[in-house]
């Protein structure tokens, strides 16, 4: 008589041979180590990194490299007891000076040298440029990192679940984005002291939306793709699919968006000063320096250059880093 054998749970035990399943060659280098190797092989990425690090270094120490403070007005009294203020001095880098004034740099103001010249209050622009860079970098980094976390999660979740969830989440976005920023900021300023943190909060409130829109669009594009379906069939949970499977594949546009958020954050900070919200004078930022320079653009044209050049170099650096990261994070077959 034949007996039907019903398998019991104990029949299946894991062999104690995990090495069987491991591809040693692949696992010997961790994911991040691979990314790093890829990144540093890319020459442009390295140049970008150097530029950005240099700017960060100068922002950190540049304003204390000479004898001027960012708010010091350089002046002395002449024999008639009148003040002579070192304002509106063109850059004293010989080549630049010649370009703007058509003449060789004359004697310095006293024994001082103003590498980038001075502003129309008589303050050293070298010091103020790097001081401004410090303020702007702080504002830009803090807001962008927080925005990226909030915006990306929001957009990915909204796009992944779709339907009612998406509908409600998108309406919230619309409400948040539709109230003009100047209105939100003015109201916010009643409840918070004005200053750098108010600027950061104001930027946080609106800047995450762009990021969430990109993330959502990427999600919509990606979620119907085969590997997502495969992952879902294999029983992966939503969190895993969103953040481990899809996120790395959407990193490209997000990095581009992050980079373009930097100048936006810097200029928005300066724009907020129209409603009287912004960093308190005599502090400065790259945005306010550009605006100050703009007010005198035909009469003192060199004033606007240092902040714009710093910003442009920063962006160039970030673009190179961004490209490097994209390639390193999502390596294509031929790169392996």
């Amino acid at each position, binding site marked *: 008589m034949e007996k039907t054998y019903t398998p019991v749970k104990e029949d299946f035990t894991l062999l104690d041979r995990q090495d069987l399943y491991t591809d040693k060659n692949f696992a010997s280098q961790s994911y991040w180590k691979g990314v790093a190797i890829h990144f540093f092989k890319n020459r442009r990425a390295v140049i970008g990194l150097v530029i950005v690090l240099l700017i960060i270094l100068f922002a950190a120490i540049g304003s204390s490299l000479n004898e001027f403070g960012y708010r010091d007005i350089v002046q002395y009294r002449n024999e008639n007891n009148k*003040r002579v203020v070192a304002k*509106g001095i063109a850059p004293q880098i010989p080549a630049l000076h010649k370009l703007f004034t058509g003449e060789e740099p004359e004697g310095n103001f006293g024994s001082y040298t103003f590498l980038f010249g001075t502003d*129309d*209050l008589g303050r050293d622009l070298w010091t103020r440029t790097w001081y401004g860079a410090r303020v702007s970098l702080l504002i830009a980094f803090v807001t962008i990192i927080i925005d990226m976390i909030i915006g990306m999660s929001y957009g990915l979740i909204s796009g992944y679940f779709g339907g009612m969830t998406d509908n409600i989440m998108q309406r919230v976005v619309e409400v948040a984005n539709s109230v003009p920023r100047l209105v939100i900021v003015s109201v916010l300023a009643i409840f918070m002291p004005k200053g750098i943190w108010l600027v950061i909060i104001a930027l946080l409130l609106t800047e995450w939306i762009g990021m969430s829109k990109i993330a959502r669009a990427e999600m919509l594009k990606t979620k119907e793709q085969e590997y997502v379906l495969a992952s879902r069939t294999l029983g992966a949970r939503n969190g895993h699919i969103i953040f481990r499977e899809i996120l790395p594949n959407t990193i490209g546009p997000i990095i581009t968006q992050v980079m373009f958020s930097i100048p936006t954050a810097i200029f928005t900070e300066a724009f907020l000063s129209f409603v*009287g919200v912004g960093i308190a*004078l005599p502090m400065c930022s790259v945005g306010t320096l550009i605006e100050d320079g703009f*007010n*005198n653009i*035909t*009469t003192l044209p060199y004033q606007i250059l240092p902040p714009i050049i710093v910003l442009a170099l920063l962006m160039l650096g970030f673009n190179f880093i961004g490209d490097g990261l994209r390639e390193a994070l999502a390596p294509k077959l031929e790169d392996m």
Partner: protein
Amino acid sequence: MKKLTAILLSIMMLLACVVTASADDASYLGVMLGTNVMSLDTNLATDGDSFEVIADCIDGLMQMDKDGAAVPALAESYDVSDDGLTYTFHLRDAKWNNGTPVTANDFVFAWRRIAKEAGEYAYMLDEIGNIKGAAEIISGSEADLTTLAVSAPDDKTFVVELNVPVSFFPSLMYFPTFYPINEEFYNSLADGTYGTSPETFLSNGAFVLESYTPGTANLSVKKNPDYWDADRVKLAGINYQVVGSSDNALTAFRNKTLDVVMVSGNQVDAAKKDATLAENLKVTGAGYMWYLSFSQTEKNAEGGMLANANLRLAISNAIDRENLVDNYVMDGSLATYTAVPPQFAASSTTGDDFSANQDAFIDYVGYNPEKAAEYLEAAKAELGKDSFSFTMIYGNNEGDEVQKVAQAIKEDVEDALPGVEINLQSMTKAERLDKMQNDNYDIALTRWGPDYADPMTYLGMWVTNNSNNYGFWSNAEFDQLIADCTTGAYISDYDARWEAMFKAERIVMQEAVIAPLYTKANANLITAGVEGIDFHPVALNRVYKDTTK
């Protein structure tokens, strides 16, 4: 890429074809406005630019001559009763540009309307002009407009009755608030449309409105051939253009787009250094004075610290006003050491400027760091406190130089007064005013412009409980002096009144109720060959009736 260039080029060529020959009549004068014209309705206009355009198009009873004195315009002559309370104006023959004659009723209608609507400048009728019945209508306690003591016995006679004699009453008549509006025309328009287009606006003045819409950045007026004094007007018209920045104004002038522009700060400096531009530069008084207001109430300034006169004097003496105007404002503004700024109020008996002597209060105000330090020591002893931290508020939309001045003041004060810290806080002008009116500030960088040519336009501000007394300062002696000047003992004795006002000013300065900073000037660039623009610090900043190009 080639294709792209080709497309761009063809777009350019297409555009070049669209260039129509609408080049402006060369005989028009191109004039810069600093801000948009807010309204052409005399009841609603509050800014100098609006007043200027209104005055181009409408004449009042009186007008300003080139020195700012009141001379007859629509009124051929006027009589004053012996008690100084009744003015009778005799109107000349003049026409609105729709052909109807200007009558005394046009004034009655316009003035009643001002009182009824009770706008910003309604106070010219009651507080300044002291017209009988005005105060009741403006405050809303009297609804019957006929109680305003203005009347038109016939078409050519206009009579006004006052509560008290007002020595400068005729000179108020050139202020746009007192201009006429044709009742019949006004009533024929839909509600809210008066003065919003050339069709809905009537002129009786030197120019008629040619193109205008509310909010526009450019508008034009053209010569009025039916003006009663048409022979005097030489210009074919004026093109007004709102210009947003001083730098842009300079380029627009160089480009000959505009004939008359105002520049400030660095652009004045640049113009001075340029040989051809320097010849075109003309500095004129703008009238208004910038000053620091100190809140003296308990709830502000670390528990009312600024109620201490020595502390206020210390701050006032720490500021180098010459440095402010020479290095930062740069447009010819005058460092000011009196509570009433110079150049707008001259005595009608002696002709002397009320504030000609800027050294009058040199014991209390002036740049003197040592003295400032002494005042500070005295204040520290009196208050039992060694360090002070105050916030200074200023408007971010009140001219390029304001934030430079604010920063320079901070540096001066902190240099001269160890232990005193000034934090700058920028805000919109609206918010600054709001904070001052609600007494929610420590120190404010603020300004006041004269509405009429009498020192009282300033001194009246510091009377106890006056709504412009932002420091909440109060002094019985001062109040008494002002009361005597406006309604009491000195009202009919011109020289005694003048002396009393001087005494009152001394009290303000002794106590440093405010710290005067500078009296604003305008640095104008005017194209060579353009002559005869009358500049005034009060009421009408620019008048073009005698202008030639």
